[in-house]
């Protein structure tokens, strides 16, 4: 199984979980059907024309109809965003396999899960709405609730215990490490340049190579650069995790982010940046480190609020081997690889586990707050949205591309606060993909259907799709795709003593053949040719006989034949040997030589020769010997 991401957009249908009692949210009117029926008004609330479920937020799990997840042997994880569904799979499906991931992926993945669990668990909500999920009722609801898919499978967030148990099934791997899977294939993680420890995977046998490219970046940000060279010579390249905003260039967006941040703060407003606790935030902090002095923002406090803020900032500094070259070399100076260390030291950046406690003492405005969750449905961000939403001096800047910012803002409407959308997605765009594919030249590309056509909103943008030769094979939801290669060959090893005994014969210049008689020994998908057992000695005792019975019987070896039969010469030879009335017919695959007198037929084809005669064994043997004259034996 390649990755197991969690679809969190389902949470956008729920009301936010405020950290402190919000009169506004708790006084929202209940929703009633057109006919005035108000039986759902406890579960559904209306806010500025949108309807939300008033319940603990739920997540949309990976589909399980198509495959029994208990039969999955291995899960390969490409980055920490792509493992958020792991506890659901390892803990509730009977999964007994192994999960492979790099260390930063696992550690930061743990932080993300921990944050998520913390955000949800610290605001316990008594109510759990389920009535609306009834298919007959759901049909009556307004969009987008009406169109939500598989709502019955939506689940509440996992617990920390489940997270720990899931993470214990992870086997840590390093870049370029080769891992044998049951002898059948070998898998290798390669740096994908997108996030700390993010990987692409190579899955290969001796004769086939499949690359799985997911969430990769060619930009120079903090992680180790993408390893492209190792992706060459792939039979199939499975491509996914491209940028969600192909038209936005991350550099431009960072500029936009900084400009709007400065503009707001200079006018005395506060800036709220809903974000994940790891990833782009490191780059943003680095940009701000260079920018704040030049923009005259040195006195503005920057707050990073997350239950895992401290761990995230510290982890980033210790994963030196997973960082880009520049940052790696800083470690040897020794200096912290990320400049946020200096921001913390100079008190420009302060971090807190939550808004409670120290933060409330230190809080000064105007300020810039980085906090989660980007969906604006839970986490400390909810508090700041409620606090600052009423003033047009403040700005919320969306940098994470995972959620539609308009949908995220819907339960906070009407909103006076300015909203800026600067999605920063460093993953591959289509121009970079086409360069990558030109570089690594896979025989086939397999990708989601969405990548093979321009985005629906920009149907003329032919440049916003994958353009490669041969055209990419696409797949859609629940489609089963056969990868375009056949396993034709297996590698077989020959034991040295057996190899010694072979006597090759040159049949063409440069090509030698030898017959091998051996025992094929297959175990764990490894094939070995071993010397055949010695011819059995006549049994001397009953006990010995039993032993020899275990060895397979070796029949007398017939010689192998090779070569082709030239029909004209063959006919001449037949005539020389007294056959007459010979007729030759051409067939699609070869020739038929008819011996009319003897009522016999010799069928000569490329890879077989048949002598069909009527119960005359002597004649058959004579004819066979004549045929054999034209063939080489060994």
């Amino acid at each position: 199984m390649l990755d197991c991401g969690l679809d969190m957009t389902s949470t956008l249908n729920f009301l936010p979980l405020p950290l402190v009692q919000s009169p506004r949210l708790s006084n929202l009117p209940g929703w009633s059907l057109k006919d005035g029926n108000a039986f759902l008004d406890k579960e559904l609330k209306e806010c500025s024309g949108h309807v939300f479920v008033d319940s603990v937020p739920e997540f949309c799990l990976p589909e399980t109809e198509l495959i029994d997840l208990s039969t999955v042997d291995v899960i390969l994880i490409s980055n920490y965003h792509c493992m958020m569904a792991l506890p659901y799979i390892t803990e509730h499906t009977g999964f007994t396999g192994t999960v492979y991931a790099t260390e930063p992926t696992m550690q930061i993945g743990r932080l993300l899960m921990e944050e998520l669990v913390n955000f949800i668990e610290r605001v316990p909500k008594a109510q759990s709405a389920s009535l609306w999920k009834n298919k007959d009722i759901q049909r009556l609801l307004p969009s987008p609730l009406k169109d939500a898919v598989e709502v019955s499978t939506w689940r509440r967030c996992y617990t920390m215990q489940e997270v720990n148990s899931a993470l214990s099934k992870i086997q840590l791997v390093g870049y370029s490490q080769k891992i044998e899977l049951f002898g059948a294939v070998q898998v290798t993680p390669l740096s994908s340049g997108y996030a700390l420890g993010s990987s692409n995977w190579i899955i290969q046998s001796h004769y086939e190579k499949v690359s799985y490219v997911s969430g990769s970046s060619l930009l120079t940000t903090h992680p180790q650069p993408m390893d492209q060279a190792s992706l060459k010579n792939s039979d199939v390249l499975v491509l996914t995790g491209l940028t969600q905003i192909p038209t936005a260039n991350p550099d431009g967006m960072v500029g936009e982010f900084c400009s709007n941040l400065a503009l707001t703060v200079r006018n005395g407003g506060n800036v709220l940046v809903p974000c994940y606790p790891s990833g782009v935030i490191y780059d943003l902090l680095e940009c701000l480190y260079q920018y704040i002095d030049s923009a005259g923002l040195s006195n503005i406090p920057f707050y990073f609020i997350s239950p895992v803020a401290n761990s995230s900032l510290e982890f980033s500094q210790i994963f030196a081997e997973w960082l880009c070259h520049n940052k790696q070399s800083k470690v040897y100076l020794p200096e912290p690889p990320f400049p946020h260390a200096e921001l913390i030291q100079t008190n420009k950046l302060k971090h807190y586990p939550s808004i409670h406690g120290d933060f409330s003492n230190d809080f000064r405005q105007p300020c810039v707050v980085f906090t989660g969750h980007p969906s604006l449905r839970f986490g400390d961000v909810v508090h700041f949205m409620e606090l600052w939403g009423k003033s047009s001096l403040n700005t919320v800047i969306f940098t994470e591309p995972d959620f539609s910012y308009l949908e995220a803002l819907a339960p906070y409407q009407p909103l006076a606060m300015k909203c800026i959308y600067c999605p920063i997605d460093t993953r591959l765009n289509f121009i970079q993909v086409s360069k990558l594919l030109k570089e690594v030249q896979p025989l086939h590309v397999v990708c989601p259907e969405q990548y093979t056509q321009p985005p629906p909103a920009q149907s003329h943008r032919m440049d916003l799709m994958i353009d490669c030769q041969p055209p990419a094979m696409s797949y859609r939801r629940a489609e089963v795709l056969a990868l375009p290669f056949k396993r034709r060959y297996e590698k077989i090893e020959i034991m040295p003593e057996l190899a010694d005994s072979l006597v090759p014969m040159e049949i063409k210049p440069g090509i030698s053949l030898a017959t091998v008689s051996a025992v094929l020994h297959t175990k764990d998908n490894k094939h070995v040719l071993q010397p055949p057992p010695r011819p059995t000695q006549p049994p001397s005792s009953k006990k010995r006989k039993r032993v020899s019975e275990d060895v397979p019987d070796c029949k007398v070896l017939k010689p192998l034949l090779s070569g082709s039969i030239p029909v004209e010469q063959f006919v001449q030879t037949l005539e020389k040997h007294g056959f007459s009335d010979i007729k030759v017919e051409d067939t699609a695959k070869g020739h038929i030589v008819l011996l009319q007198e003897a009522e016999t037929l010799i069928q000569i084809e490329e890879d077989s020769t048949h002598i069909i005669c009527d119960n005359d064994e002597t004649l058959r043997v004579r004819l066979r010997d004549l045929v054999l004259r034209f063939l080489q034996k060994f």
Partner: protein
Amino acid sequence: MDPECSKLLPALCAVLADPRQLVADDTCLEKLLDWFKTVMETESSLHLLQDHPCLMELLSHVLKTQDVSPRVLSFVLRLVGIFAAQEDCFQYLQQGELLLGLFGETGALSWTAWNMPSVRSGWIQGLCSLAHHPSALHFLADSGAVDTIFALQGDPSLFVASAASQLLVHILALAMQGGASGSPISEAAAWPICAQKIVNHVEESLHSKATPQVTQALNVLTTTFGRCHSPWTGVLWGRLSPPVACLFERDPIPAVHSLMDLLLSVARSHVLNFAACGLWEMLAQTLSRLSPTQAGPLALGTLKLQHCPQELRTQAFGVLLQPLACILKATTQAPGPPGLLDGTAGSSLTVDALLSSKSACVGLLCQTLAHLEELQMLPQCPCPWPQVPLLGATVTILRLCDGSVDPSSSMGGRLCGTLGGCVRVQRAALDFLGTLSQGTSPLELVLEVFAVLLKTLESPESSPTVLKKAFQATLRWLQNSHKTPNCSDLSPDALLFLGELFPILQKRLCSPCWEVRDSALEFLTHLIRHWGGQADFREALHSSEVPTLARQLLQDPESYVRASAVGTAGQLSSRGLQATSASPENPLAQQGLLMDLMHILSTDSEGFPRRAVLRVFTEWLRDGHADVIRDTEWFVATVLQAVSRDLDWEVRMQGLELAQVFLIQAMGQPSLHCPYTVGLPEATSPRPHPEFLQTLCRLPLFEFAFCALLDCDRPVAQKACDLLLFLRDKTTHCSGPQEAGDSPNSASVEAVLQRWREGEQGQPLGDLEPEAMLAILRSLDLEGLQGKLAKSSDHVEKSPQSLLQDMLATVGILEENEADCY
């Protein structure tokens, strides 16, 4: 030649002839040649050679041994050429077999140093100088030099090859000049032998299958028609146009660029009768045969021609319009508005070029836009100018670049992919868009222009260079949109546009990229300069945060931005548009800006912001800014005090400018000195009030000016000199007949000035009386100083004597070193 140089020459010749002495610096030899050339302009070279036997010795030494360095060999070849340019000297050198020995087949060509490009180049330049009289022509013909020049046209060194072509043209012109003393020789067969030889060679090369040879021949012809405008060039074209025409029939056409250059060069000639020589037909054919990218420059060149048939102009203009017509066609719904071109001839070629590759598409569009931009500004600009479709196409190109166009065809879709985010095309299109603002356009289109400009200015994807161009284009459109006579007001549409522009400008002023902040500030300054007085504009500006943000940028870490912010803040303040806290009711805040600028002037570590402050202050003083006139004396005194310590000479210069403005305001304009000016009898400027002179002493303007007079930077000293002259002029009738040194006061000033001259500038002049100042002013030889300063600072070092001494001195050092080593 002056006697000092004559004395130094033998030693120098000895050094040059000595292979052990290295002339380290090539430029010395160049300067030496230049000097010889100047000497020979007034003196006979024959006499020079005869008077300085050392020169002949050097020449014959080189001829005999050739053991000098290649650079000296090259020098000698060129020197001989300069000598032999005078016919009598040529004869003299010829007698001594020197010329043949150097330029003949047994000369330089046979030396091992011939491998050096510098020697071959010296040989060509020597011949080029020499070829100035009929004897030279005979020499060239007899010595076989012309054949060598033919060969050198293909020299691996481009300098040598190019010089060889130039030399051929020079010889051809000389030969024809000699032959054509009477009426033009219409028959090429009757031309001088040397000319015939060259023309035959060119003709043969034109027939050659090898492109380099064709290129060489074309280059020779291009230079010939560019340089020679005698009737014989007509005969030459008559003979060579058929082989040139044949080149167009080859596939592919060889040496396209050289061919186009030739056609344009011929077309620019005044001598030819174009109608008769078939040039127009050839141009027309060429335009239709070349690829769009190749034809562009030819089309522009054709349109620039003075006398060109209308039909050809139309065709050439069509070539330039074709790519834009294709863009319009690919993006407009059929049938759409009338396009740029009715015919579609050649459009498939253009479409191919646009779609073949990204680089081809970008190259063609950038070239076309640049050509059209150039054309629109020329007097030869085609009329009628298709303003509307051109504007439409340019807007479309910008939309293709920002991805906002919805193309109607598959070609449009591909163009969208190719041009998306292409900075080069965006820049070219914005430049052209700016130029198009000069024409009259319908309102809908103007609104589209504003929309696309807003989009570009707003887009996070726009690079700093694109933004700069977009700001420039915006300014031009604001200036020119709906221009009504006698009305500089902004149109209502422009005002609406500004309403949307200011929030964008706010964001840009906060950009992390300093270039963007800088261009936004510059743009803002222009806006205020143009419309700062208009009520609607003021209101729109005031309701935004722009003035506050601009003021904050006075503290920007980037000096360029600070400089621009100073300009903007100064302009805002001049117009009474300062940031809201500094309203007219709150003069303290206003005073704050003056103090801020003073602070920058005295503390900023970079020169640009300080210069900008002085520019603003000078403008404020000139325009009578309220803060300045409140206490002008204090203002000038404080500025001069800060400026006098400044290390940047441009700041000191600006300080003098400010002082001058101050003086002019008090004493009137300087009197005109131009002797040819027929003016009304000047109203005698008012005699300056004695109190004013006191003020000048107190400021202390005199001290500042005297100090600047001794400034080590010449422009500052010049400016100070002018200022003091002006002051002296205005105070002629001011005081009594005191002479300098009469009073003890002026004597002490004199003494201080003397010490200043000696480099002790720390001492102040002390308290001064106006009389003493005036006395010193009169005693100074300001005119003499002005004359001295007008000469360039290296005029002493530039003298030939100094050059010869330098060369000898360098060698002398070498000798010393040698001795040391030994």
